[in-house]
């Protein structure tokens, strides 16, 4: 990189931030010019979030400084950051569900404005940047994409000089991503600098003109992503190219899991009603379910796993047996295993050891004979040790608390726990959410291996790349309805994206 131009909008100089167990940022430098869309690329845990929090004033660096327009900025909290023109759109939205869009935006703005004022400005700003926002709707009635637009409008109303977006596309359909890019380019053309945090290489290469790569808290490169390939960016990000998966031919057998006319009216006012869902998964195949979260995945998975038994009789069957009203234990005895999306709390008990956590789904193997049914500490420990060894989980042994593991390692452990139970049918939700690239590849490899051994797999994920990589067929879930299935070989990102908006009748008829 050349020497700093005098007109840099934002400069981060030699920032180091240590936490008790980890160095989150080590001597990090970042330079952003006005009107530039600058990517910050790195895996989960590479230090991106810490760096953004330092810029945004939410975290204080141990060493180093942040310069805004060449002047040292003493930002002590997010309010001061906003006052100086730094705005941030968070990955997990910070909107209030029970108040309206306009009120939410008002909360993020200066006191001197009236609500009517804010309402009018919101409409105006939204129009300029083509963001579709209805100011009077309560936020709990909005989709994830709509919520993100509200966050962006809120950020824009502060007239930011620097706009930080943290993994903004992880919740969007491909079409919504296109729309977002148009907005961001327009913003940059108006002189606003955009910091774009992501781990998606294609997006960065398409959108950004500059890129800072982080790995393990250190900067591993400043590059122009337009001149890079996915492979070269990946080398900077993880130190290696992502491993390729071996896909073998499908040999399907009997129908393992089937749903026929599965409809459930939501009992939670913020829930989604499932509407006539039909699908089947045969042994020896992986069927994917794509869709933006909040479209009924939770309700769908609860009905399949047995956490909810509100499904109508005869709507869900396991190898031909009706299981609609059965609890998870009965379903598990029939060979149906389930890996939930939330690892801590549903997949594992955070404060218990890995050994004790085997009890959640493998109790029959570690509990002695009735009537006493003592838990055998020896059996739990050896089962946990087997899983740790077979799935290369980095943990302090079977006695380590579940919450002491990193997200990726815990996910490997939980997936491993279910895979090593030799399931006949396995349902996995978000198999690699928050998991680093290496661990993700390993988990996907295990899923494929299980398929080749004749298991029927249903994978629910928001990551389209992942579904395209592992699935033989795909469905899309939108607004509580499930699309017909499409062979992965015939599917395109465009088409799945359309379906994600619930438009499969149209494209199906064509």
């Amino acid at each position, binding site marked *: 990189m050349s020497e700093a131009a005098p007109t840099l909008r934002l400069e981060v100089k030699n920032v180091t931030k240590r936490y008790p167990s980890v160095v989150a940022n080590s001597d990090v430098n970042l330079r952003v010019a006005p009107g530039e869309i600058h990517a910050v690329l790195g895996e989960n845990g590479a230090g991106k979030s810490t760096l953004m929090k330092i810029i945004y004033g*939410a975290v204080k660096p141990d060493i180093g400084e942040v310069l805004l327009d060449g002047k040292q900025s003493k930002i002590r*909290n*997010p*309010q001061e950051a*906003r006052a100086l023109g730094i705005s941030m759109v*968070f990955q997990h939205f*910070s*909107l*209030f*569900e*029970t*108040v309206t869009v306009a*009120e939410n935006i*008002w*909360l*993020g703005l200066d*006191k001197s404005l009236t*609500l009517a004022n804010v309402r009018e400005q919101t409409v105006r700003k939204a129009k300029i940047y083509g963001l579709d926002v209805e100011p009077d709707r*309560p936020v*709990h009635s909005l989709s994830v994409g709509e919520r993100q637009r509200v966050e962006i409008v809120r950020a824009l109303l502060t007239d930011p000089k620097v706009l930080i977006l943290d993994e903004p596309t992880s919740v969007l359909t491909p079409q919504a991503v296109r729309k977002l890019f148009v907005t961001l380019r327009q913003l940059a053309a108006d002189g606003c600098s955009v910091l774009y945090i992501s781990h998606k290489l294609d997006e960065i290469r398409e959108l950004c003109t500059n890129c800072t790569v982080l790995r393990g808290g250190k900067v591993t490169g400043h590059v122009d992503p337009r001149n890079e390939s996915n492979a070269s960016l990946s080398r900077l990000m993880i130190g290696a190219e992502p491993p390729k998966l071996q896909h073998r031919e499908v040999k399907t057998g009997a129908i393992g899991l089937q749903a026929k006319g599965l409809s459930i009216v939501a*009992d*939670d*006012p*913020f829930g989604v009603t499932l509407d006539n869902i039909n699908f089947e998964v045969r042994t020896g195949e992986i069927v994917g379910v794509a869709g933006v979260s909040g479209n009924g995945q939770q309700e769908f998975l609860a009905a399949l796993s047995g956490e909810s038994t509100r499904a109508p009789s005869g709507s869900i069957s396991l190898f031909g047996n009706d299981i609609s009203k059965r609890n998870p234990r009965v379903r598990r005895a029939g060979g149906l295993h389930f890996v939930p999306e939330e690892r801590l709390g549903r997949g594992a008990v955070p404060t218990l050891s890995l050994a004790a956590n085997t009890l959640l789904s493998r109790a029959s193997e570690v509990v002695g004979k009735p009537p006493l049914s003592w838990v055998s500490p020896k059996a739990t420990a050896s089962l946990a040790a087997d899983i740790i060894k077979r799935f290369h989980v980095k943990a302090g042994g079977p006695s380590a608390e579940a919450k002491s593991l990193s997200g990726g390692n815990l996910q490997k452990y939980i997936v491993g726990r279910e895979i090593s139970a030799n399931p006949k049918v396995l349902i996995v939700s978000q198999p690699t959410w928050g998991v680093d690239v290496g661990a993700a590849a390993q988990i996907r490899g295990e899923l494929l291996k299980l398929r080749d051994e004749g298991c029927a797999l249903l994978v629910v994920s928001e990551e389209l790349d992942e579904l395209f990589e592992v699935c033989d067929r795909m469905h899309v879930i939108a607004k509580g309805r499930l699309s017909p299935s499409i062979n992965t070989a015939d599917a395109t990102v465009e088409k799945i994206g359309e379906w994600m908006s619930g438009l499969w009748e149209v494209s199906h008829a064509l």
Partner: protein
Amino acid sequence: MESFALLIAATFNAGTVLAIAALGLLINEKSGIVNLGAEGMMLCAAIAGFAAVVHTGNDWVGFAAGMAAGAGMAALFGVLVIWLNTNQYATGLALSLFGAGFSAFVGVKYVQEKLPARPSYAIPGLADIPFIGPALFKQHPLAYIGIALALAIIWFLFKTRAGLVLRSVGESPESAHSLGYPVRRIRLLAVMFGGAMCGLSGAYLSIIYTPLWVEGMVSGKGWIALALTTFATWRPLRVLFGAYLFGGVTMMQFHLQSQGVDIPSQFLSMAPYLATIVVLALISRNPAWIRINMPASVGKPFYPGS
């Protein structure tokens, strides 16, 4: 006819005690903090208010003393719960037990005390209207202030920015913190307001409602006020309605008991609790309504910056 007007007047009076405390607790809970110490705060406020009137002869000094006692105890509770993150329920229960014991201890020498003669409170003109006058217009000013308080709280919560901020803090303290709002200070103020209103209610009890001091004289009204806010789904007008309903059924059963109706008195004593819970549960049974009005973070600890 005359006795019916008196029944309405008594209902109004009894409902006011509950309404003021419950409305204060509503603001308290809208911030995401539940203070189970209401009973203890009311007891301490009752003795503080009573003692102040005994020594000064001025009712308003008594109300001020009650509010100060309530707010002071709430502040102690607030510091423990908001900054030191002690468990809200356990701390609140401790405050109730402490308040009961402490008020009894301080109150020993006031048990035989008498207050100066209670003046009558009649609004000139209005109080002379037949039936309506004795039913509604011979109340202590605080009875009208109770209604004004409900209206003021509606205006505050739903029409002002400060009210919006309070609701936001109660829904998601993490988000409010990330927007830069001083969550802990806002919660402390809300808790202290709740304490002050419980204090006002306790002082009203010992100065106006039954002008004397008896150990444990609040006799569960703090707990009823807490239950009212929940059963009324944190809506001020429903809280007000619930308070008068409870007051009304209480008075009715006294009336029936004195008439010697052939129902076991135990059943009559149950009636106000049962009626209030059933009626409020019925009008507030819509789960969507509950979710939208309930402060989502209530009872949960909040650690800023984690």
